[in-house]
Structure formats: structure tokens, C-alpha cells
């Protein structure tokens, strides 16, 4: 409970204003596409929202609500997308998402984490990936004879999703090769980044894995980590620093690609098909990738944080680079969805197991939004968003899209 107590100030500072459920005014669009909390949009009860979860946290803290008597339903329905947090923090100094996460860890410690989460954790423990696939096959998709630069201090971290979406990892490799970026792969030494464990509130498991990975990066002398997956990127920037200083610079492949394009190091075919598309900001590349910095201090009267706190308000996510890439690809027309950048609607993939109806309904909503803007295709940068949204609408990963347009050095 001490952990939760740390956020009591946040719990007490919420006045039920509802900004955590509604689009930020500068992005307002109309009646439609105005809601930003997936669980509130679906369930409607206020308990299902950042505000509601602050209420619940407070009542767990003061003993009014008992762990294990149902609150887990709403707690793990939440996709941990952080939209509530960004919106609340547009006008407040409240840690909404940290409070939700802390409540999860407290409940998980009390043994009330959902079965699906525990089963995933078991898979990670045994096979080092979230799918329970054989670890030997982690890099099975690499073309035979592929050579990386074994001495490079830059690593391409492909992530567990390379099991299900090897095309993304291959595209990342193609982009780096075309741009002349030297890098190495960790191959059998690469384990899951641990984001799913952390997000789920399984702190002991997450800590073990993250510490292992951090030690590996150190041991290998890694100075730069490029991730092919938004989840790993958000994890390295937003989660890892909680467990120790990240010495390596962390970049997402879109950041590297945008720079290569800007510097003219990769050139693109000009005969691409005409397409109207929209970019869906993954939470872990956007608002949740904002670097995390420790803050220990005192909240003095009238909200004065001593020492000054660096707030994560979603400002420092990766928003510009994916858009710059789409801009650079000939023939593409990009339209923005109203809920974009720091206020993007989550695809709700991560609640598939715990609240399937809400998750499906949210994905449908996102597709409806894309179609309403006239988009023929959604482009994103996260394999999980791809899984959530691609059933009902053409969808492509941005690296895969870019790789198709790369003129030279195409083959890997």
C-alpha cells in the first residue's frame, strides 16, 4: 500500500472534470470521434476511466474497497494507453497512469492478476517471448547467409513481434542497410523487452527481465538501440529508466529512417501507387514513449513540487518522424484522424484477453474514424496495432511501406 500512498495526492486532486475522457479542445472535430478513453467509451460507467480508477485507487488505499472483489475487472480492462494521463495533464499535475499502474502492481502482488496475464508471464519466463514460441526460432526469419556488423555498438532490437510479423524486422533491416547504417543483431541473446509484464503490473517478473536486458546491453557495449517495434521503443524509453540508467541511446526505426531520408541517404522509387492513407499513432511510440525520469521530492502547499518535477505529459513522443516518412513517399496522400498524436485513440489490443468486447469495439471505432477521413489504408508503426486493426481495413506497417519504396540496396 505504501506504493499507492505515493499517489494519494493525485487521487485527491481529481475533481471529476472528465477531461480524461474527451478529446483535447485544440483537436476537436465535431460530435463524432470525441472520446479518447476506450473503456469509458464502451462501458460508460465512470469507474471505467482514468478518473474512476483514481477513485478506486483511493478507496483501495483507505480500505473501503477490497482487492479481489471485482475491481480487477475494470483495472485490467484498461488498455494502459495513457490518453487519460495526457489529457488530464494538459491542465493538471496529476499522475493518472502511474496510479493505475501502481494499483495493478498492488493487486497483482495480492494474487489477483488475470489468468491470461499470468500465462503470458509464464511463456516469457520459459521461452523469452510473449507467444510461447521456441526461443531457437526467434531469428528464424532471417535470410540465410545474412550478415550483420558484429562489432557495431548499434543494435537492431527486433522484439517478440518478429515471430508474428517478420516482415517488419526485415523492412527495418532493409532501411538500415539502404541507408548505410551499421548495426548488429542480438540473435539468441535477445529476449522480450518486458513491456507486457510491466504493463500488466507483474513487477517482479518485469524487473528480472529488464535487469537482465540492461546488463546485456552494458556487457555488449551497446551505445545505440534501434527498435523495429513501437512496444520495445516505448519500453526502453518509458519503462527501463525506472530500473536503472539506460546508457544507450534509444531510437525507433522511424526516427532513423526519417533522418536518412532527410540526409538523402536513402532514395525512393517515384512510381508508387496513389494511395490515401492515415497514420495511427501507437501509444508506445507516441505519448507513452516520453522518457521517464525519476522524481523523489516533496509536494509543498499549492502543488509546488520540490525539486521541480519533469512531467511526462505526452509532449516528447515520436509524432513528427512517421509523418515525415509518409510525406516523403511519392504518390501518397495522408489525412489526419481527429484523434491524433498525443491524443490518438488506442487500438485496445492489450485488453483483448481481459475485455474482448471492449477491445473489438475500440478497434472498430478506430477503423470507422480512418474511413470517415477518407483513408483507404491505415499505416502504423506497431505490430500489435496491426493485429488489432488489420482485419477490417487494409493496413500496413510504416517500415514495410517505406521498404517497398526503397530504390537502392533493396536486397538484404
Amino acid at each position, binding site marked *: 500500500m505504501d506504493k499507492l500512498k505515493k499517489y494519494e*495526492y493525485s*487521487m*485527491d*486532486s*481529481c*475533481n*471529476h*472534470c*472528465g*477531461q480524461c*475522457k474527451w*478529446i*483535447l*479542445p*485544440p483537436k*476537436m*472535430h*465535431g*460530435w463524432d470521434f*470525441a472520446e479518447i478513453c476506450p473503456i469509458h467509451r464502451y462501458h*460508460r*460507467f*465512470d*469507474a*471505467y476511466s482514468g*478518473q*474512476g480508477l*483514481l*477513485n*478506486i485507487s483511493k*478507496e483501495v488505499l483507505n480500505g*473501503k*474497497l477490497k482487492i479481489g*472483489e*471485482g*475491481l480487477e*475487472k*475494470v483495472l485490467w480492462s484498461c488498455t494502459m494507453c495513457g490518453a487519460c494521463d*495526457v489529457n488530464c*495533464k*494538459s*491542465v*493538471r*499535475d496529476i499522475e493518472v497512469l502511474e496510479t493505475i499502474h501502481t494499483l495493478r502492481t498492488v493487486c497483482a502482488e495480492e494474487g489477483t492478476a488475470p489468468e491470461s496475464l499470468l500465462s503470458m508471464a509464464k511463456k516469457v519466463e520459459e521461452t523469452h517471448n510473449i507467444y510461447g514460441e521456441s526461443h531457437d526460432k526467434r531469428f528464424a526469419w532471417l535470410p540465410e547467409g545474412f550478415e550483420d556488423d558484429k562489432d557495431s555498438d548499434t543494435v537492431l532490437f527486433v522484439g517478440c513481434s518478429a515471430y508474428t510479423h517478420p516482415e517488419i524486422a526485415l523492412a527495418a533491416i532493409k532501411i538500415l542497410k539502404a541507408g548505410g547504417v551499421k548495426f548488429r543483431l542480438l540473435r539468441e541473446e535477445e529476449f522480450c523487452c518486458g513491456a507486457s509484464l510491466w504493463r500488466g503490473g507483474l513487477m517482479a517478473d518485469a524487473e528480472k527481465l529488464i535487469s537482465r536486458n540492461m546488463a546485456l546491453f552494458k556487457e555488449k557495449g551497446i551505445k545505440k538501440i534501434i527498435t523495429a517495434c513501437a512496444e520495445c521503443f516505448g519500453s526502453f524509453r518509458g519503462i527501463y529508466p525506472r530500473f536503472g540508467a539506460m546508457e544507450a541511446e534509444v531510437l525507433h526505426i522511424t526516427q532513423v529512417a526519417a533522418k536518412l531520408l532527410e540526409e538523402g541517404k536513402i532514395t525512393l522509387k517515384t512510381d508508387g501507387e496513389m494511395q490515401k492513407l492515415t497514420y495511427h499513432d501507437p501509444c508506445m511510440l507516441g505519448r507513452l514513449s516520453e522518457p521517464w525520469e525519476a522524481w523523489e521530492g516533496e*509536494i509543498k*502547499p*499549492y*502543488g*509546488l*513540487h520540490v525539486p*521541480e*518535477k519533469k*512531467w511526462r*505529459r*505526452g*509532449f516528447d*513522443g515520436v*509524432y513528427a518522424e512517421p509523418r515525415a516518412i509518409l510525406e516523403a513517399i511519392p504518390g501518397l496522400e495522408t489525412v489526419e484522424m481527429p484523434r491524433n*498524436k*498525443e491524443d490518438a485513440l488506442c487500438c485496445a489490443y492489450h485488453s483483448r484477453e481481459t475485455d474482448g468486447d471492449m477491445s473489438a469495439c475500440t478497434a472498430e471505432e478506430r477503423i470507422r474514424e480512418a474511413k470517415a477521413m477518407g483513408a483507404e489504408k491505415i499505416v502504423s508503426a506497431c505490430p500489435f496495432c496491426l493485429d488489432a486493426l488489420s482485419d477490417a481495413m487494409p493496413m500496413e506497417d510504416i517500415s514495410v511501406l517505406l521498404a517497398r519504396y526503397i530504390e537502392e540496396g533493396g536486397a538484404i
Partner: protein
Amino acid sequence: MSLKREVYEALEAVVGKRWISEDEFVLSGNRVKTPEVPFFYHTADAIIIPGSTEEVQKVLRICNENGICFVPLVSGVSAESFANRAGTVLIQLSRMNKIVEINGLDRYAIIEPGVRHVQLYPELRKRGLSYTAAAVGPGGSVLANFTSSSGDHHNQHNASRSNRYLLGVEMVMPDGEIVRTGSLATDSGWFCPDGPGPGLRGLMKGYFGNHGQLGIITRIAIGLTPCNGPSEIESGGISPNHYVRMISPCSKVYVFNFEHIYHVRDAMLKIGEAEIGATVLKYFYLPATLMMTNSANEFHEKWNGGYKEALSMPLVVHLATQSEKEMAYEEKILFEIMEETGGKRIPREIEKWWDEHMDFFMIVSRLQSVLRLGGGWMPIKLGSDSVTHMCEIGRSIGDFIHDFTDTGKIFDAPENYQIIPMEYGHFAHIELLVNWDRTNPAAGKGIGELRIRSRNNDLENKFHAETTGSLNANMEALGPLYSNCHLWLRRIKEAIDPNGIANPLM
């Protein structure tokens, strides 16, 4: 306490299993959890989310037959949207969220309770229309604002108060009967607020809903105004560093600071007489500084670094004109008035914030930042009368507030009140806003005392400064000052809601 099984099942049969809950963790989402609130709240027995007027009718019938109190709510930001006694259900109206019609020709919109400001405002702008949007923030219910709140807003200098724009109303009474007011009552459309005979609108529309409430309002029509600004406003940046620009030679904001409230009064009256300006308001200096900063720390830095003095008695004036020529005219008049009344432009580096955050809907959306300072926040007074009367009340705040600011019970901002003239200075509204630190339990205790001191000051001076509000004690004390309106309100309430189940007063 919980609902009897047969009652719960009857309610469930109306709305369906998905839209009713008595789970403790669901109820928790709508319980008051803040330590400083001076009232004792209860836990609702259930939360019900009806999807139509018919469902509301059926739910209220069940409540009425079983003596169950109900509290309607949408976003639930106001203190009147929680269970205030045992045996209460909350009726959350967020599923009833349609914009039924926007009639550009006759300039009205018909809306359901769940429509939020952040939804209606852009829909109207697309059509070259606007409305009197209050400062509650994007997620507040437009309907609740028009029917159950003061309806004061920042553009009322020229646009008047929102209750002037409340047209037809559809309301479900506690016994389930539907009442329609205005021309709607005779199936003659939504446009006319009051039909032949007495205007029911006044009965239904109390300051916070009449005496609690008389029922549940399921649809209203509101009058719209034309909007000559751009249909889309240029905005960009990433939160919290958004900018919202209204780049037009016909839109300008000036902020002046004054020595004394009497000078502000003179300026307001002269601006009103000249019939210039879209927005004129003597603004609160604390929220003004908060809105211009992105964290409590930044606030403290700016507040102590000159903003407190620069904005000690600020008058914000937005000029919005049809042509550049008209702008030149309004500017000329405005500067002459400032010359005569002693208004001094505030430093440009502070004033320019407004250029990056126009329009006023955007600005007021940031008002929630007043809760950044440790959370404790309370509006006091909220009354309306002439500009002169309101400014006299503003002056007299200094007679009692220092006992609270000087002792640290509330934030040290004694001039933190706003006065917004209405209808070119024929009327005005006052609001004293106090902030206190929630983390300091002693501070919250001072608020009750401050309210009483403020009220006594009004009674002694016969100020029309307060609203009767939703607190019984307040009503009793202030009623005589307002032609015994409390007795009338009570009689109306007893006639329409004899079982006293519609959001009974605290």
C-alpha cells in the same frame, strides 16, 4: 443500503443488464472521494444509464413508486451530481447523446443531455454558428449547463447569459409524465421558449436546477448565434504546448490593468454604452496566471515573478468586428475609454498569450487548471445584478477575505474575483474563486467559515451577491433578500415532486 431485489430487477428490465450496476467498484467511480468537501455524501445504491426518454420515464416511475431518490448527471463535475442521501440512485445520461437537429435558418440546436461542449461547439462552427459555451471544460454537458447551472460565460458582455437561449424543453417528471415547454407543448416546434401562459422555463431552471431538480430533462433546444470567425481555427503543437490562433484583422484581445475596481466599473459601463467589444471581463488573476502556465511550479514562478502585480485588477477585452474599419473604430473608442478610466495595457509578453490561445472556448477549456494548486477550489457568490452593484460587492470582498488569505487558510489572492458584464453593461455577474490546499486538512475547514462570512456580508449590505444555491441553509438565509423566493421554490417543488425524490437538497 442496497436496492430491494425486485426493484433492481425491474430497473434492469428497463435498461438491460449492461446499463445498470450496483458493483461496489462501479459505484466507487461516482463517490465523492475528496477529503476537503464540506458535505457528507452517501453511496448510490445503483447507477443506471438509460438510453431513451422512454427508459427515463420507466426508471422514474419505478423510483417514484418505491420512494427512491434519483440524481441525474452527465459528467458529474458539479457537487450536485452525487448521492446526497441514503436510498439514492444515480441516473447517468451519457448514452442519450444525440445532436438531434441543427437548424441554421432558425438558429437553434436540439440536443440530448449527453452532448458535450467539445462536440457541439465544432459542429456549430462548421456551420458558421456558435453558442454561449460556459467555462466548465470540454467534457461538460451543454444541456446541464443551460438547465442546471448559472449559465454565465465569458462572452456574455455581448451575447448575454445562456439561459436567455434556452428554448423548448422536454422533461420527465418524477411520476414519469413528460412535460414539454414553450411552443413544443403544442407540437409547434422547439423554437419558442414560452408558450401562451406562464413560462415554465423559469420554474424548471433554477440556478443549480430548481430546488435540486424537478425531474430529468431529456432534450432541449438552444438558441444559436452567428459566428463570423473562421469555420476552423488554426491549432497545432503537442499538449500541453498547444496553440490556437484566430488570425484575423477582425479579432484582437487587449488586457488592461487598473488601480481600483471602481475604475474597472467605469470602464465597463463606458464600453457597454459604446456597444463595442465581444468579450469584456474583469478576470480572476489567479486562474489567468494558471491558464498561462503548464505546471504548478511554473505558476508559482510567474505569480511571484510579476504576474500577480501585472494582473492585479485585469480587464480582458476581445474586439471581434465585421471589418477592419470597424476594428479601427472599436480600438479607438476602447483606448479613449482606457485613457479616461486609467486602464493600463499589461506587458505585451503576458498579453500575447491570448493571441496564441484564442478563441474563448479554448481559453475557458483551460479553466480546469484552477485545480492544479493542490486541488481545493470553490466558487462563492455567483450572483447577478447591475454592474455598479457587482463592483460594490467586489470592493467589499476585501472587508472579510484578508482574515482567510493572511492566515493561509486560502491562497493569498484577495482580489481573485471576476465580474462579467452582460448585455452591454445592463447587468453583470460576480464570482469569487478561492483555492486552498487539499493536502492541508485545516485549510478545507476554513472554507465553510468563509462562505458564512461572505453570506453575512451580503445580508448586512443587502447585496445580491449570492445564489440561493442548492444548500437548504443557504436558501433559508438568503431567501428573504430575494422576495422570499425560497418559499416559492419549496412550494413548486412540493407540488411537482411530492415525494421529494428528484435530487433532494443537501
